[in-house]
């Protein structure tokens, strides 16, 4: 059984190889053309090939040389930030910046370790008011404030 000596590099290798394979898989239907008349598929496929090759080399080295281990993935901060952003992005059309902004910040605050409800509510109200003043009134961006579009 081969031992992975550098987990961090091995992970990177997997990312590269998967990305390259994805590039080839989803670009497979594109016309390849020839060097003299490059089709839309030529450069993407060449790049995908290079990415895979780099991934393979990094992966092989990860089996030979010792390297750092992978830091633990923490789902909560990233997960909550993304949920908060998506809430904002998909609700602003329906209920406007004022309410979706407050909701977003309430959710986002809990991505941190030391969230406190009272503080979060005040922060949400203050920041949303601030963004309405700056983006809508001062910069004149067309964002729906109270209602959807």
């Amino acid at each position, binding site marked *: 059984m081969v031992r992975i000596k550098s987990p*961090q*590099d091995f*992970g*990177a290798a997997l*990312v*590269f190889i998967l990305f390259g394979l994805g*590039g080839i898989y*989803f*670009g497979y239907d*594109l*016309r390849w053309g*020839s*060097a*003299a*008349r*490059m*089709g*839309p*598929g*030529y*450069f*993407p496929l060449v*790049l*995908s090939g*290079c*990415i895979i090759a*780099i*991934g393979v080399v*990094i992966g092989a080295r990860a089996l030979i040389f010792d390297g*750092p281990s992978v830091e633990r*993935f923490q789902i909560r*901060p*990233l997960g909550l*930030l*993304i949920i*908060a*952003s*998506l809430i*904002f*992005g998909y609700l*602003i*059309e329906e209920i406007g*910046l004022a309410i979706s*902004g407050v909701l977003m*910040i309430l959710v*986002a*605050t809990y*991505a*941190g*370790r030391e*969230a406190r409800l009272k*503080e979060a509510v005040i*922060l*949400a109200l203050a*920041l949303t008011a601030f*963004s309405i003043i700056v*983006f809508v009134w001062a*910069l004149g*961006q067309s*964002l729906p404030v109270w209602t959807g579009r």
Partner: protein
Amino acid sequence: MMDLHILDNLATGFVAAASLQNIGFALIGCLLGTLIGVLPGIGPIPAIAMLLPITFGLDPLSSLIMLAGIYYGAAYGGSTTSILVNIPGEASSIVTAIDGHQMAKQGKAGLALSVSALGSFFAGCVGTVFVAAFGPPLATLAQEFNSPDYFALMVLGLAMAVMLAHGSVLKAVGMVFIGLLLGLAGTDVNSGTQRYTFGITFLFDGIDFLPLVIGLFGIVEIVRNLEMKEAPRMTVVARFRDLWPRLADLKDAVKPALRGTFLGSLLGILPGGGAVLASFASYTMEKKLAKDPSRFGKGAIEGVAGPESANNAAAQTSFIPLLTLGLPSNPVMALMMGALMIQGLQPGAAIMTKQPDLFWGLVASMWIGNLMLVVLNLPLIGIWVKLLSVPYRLLFPAILLFCVVGIYATNSSPGQIGLMAVFSVFGYILVKFGCEPAPMVLGFILGPLMEENLRRSLVLSRGDPIIFLERPISATLLVITVIVFGLIVLPAFRRGREQAFQEEG
């Protein structure tokens, strides 16, 4: 004759840039940039990425002026935190932190800050003249450039970026390639074929720049900071009556600042060069030239004056390749290029000839931005320092709101926020596996350009790659690229590079 032209041109620029409105935008840009740059853990790249959307509603010149202000402000904010708190907000102020923070500990924070600001201002002035003097001839040279030359130039630029990236060279190359491939998504200009769009309408025009950089840098940055146990903040309270340096102190700082300025101006022009390289190089040079090198690391004023001047000069002159050749030499310039393209401008020699107001206005605004930093920001240091005491748990929701509202305000499409989410997950995975996303942005910006120039070159030569070696310009550039890669592989250089990046830790 030439000199008169420069004066004429600069005058045009100042007329364009010095309107009340534009000075106002420069001011807002500087203030916002400093504000974000001072905040711990946010360097210029995420800062610019976050503030980009604010500038889109403006006309091109105003938006560029504001962006330049944000850029200098963010860089300046980064130096402030590295001196006061020993947290370099960005790679180019890492070396400033070494001696600057020691100075602050010895009660000389005011001196370090003012030397850094004055040195930067002086370097900025010289850098502006450099841009004015070298821009036009380079733009003329650029007209000699043909597709193969552009292609070779981009290869060189990417190679230099790889050389200067943190960590593993191989991973950096991989990141560049991934960026290039991402840059190709969208409708192929030549055939009209959809590539990697998965039938999603908003991808037909290609992946939007803003969700990409905000996801990769903004969101990932927040997550990284949240993961860290809150570090104890070692704020050194600077005494601000000491802000203005005494004459004797200045004398020690003048020569390093001059050398740093010159070195920085030169290194900034190189593709792949820029502020980071310049500050490291200047620090090394000052240490070599010093009579007593052991003072370095213990609060040597040369260690602040030199690198700070160098990085600002380089920040200035790195606009040269962008504005004359259309080649961003570092990730910050890639952001600037992205901003220009969103304004509907294709950076390159054409800007100078077709829109001289814009080019010279930008050059003039660089100088105005630098002046504002000294005149307005230096007295405001007290306020910036107070910002450092705002706890992160209150700060990050504000940053997130800014990012998301910014993206939405630019194109009113929830899908773009989804795209941002995708890139933040991707960026998070990359960071966990030790891949630095910065080279990827460079690749992303250059992807379509490289493909187009490669295609045209190969059409010219009927598919024979020898064309890249037959043309003198492209052959020279490729030879330099090979040398660069040779250097990277060379054990001695490799050790030096690793050492240089180790000082960050």
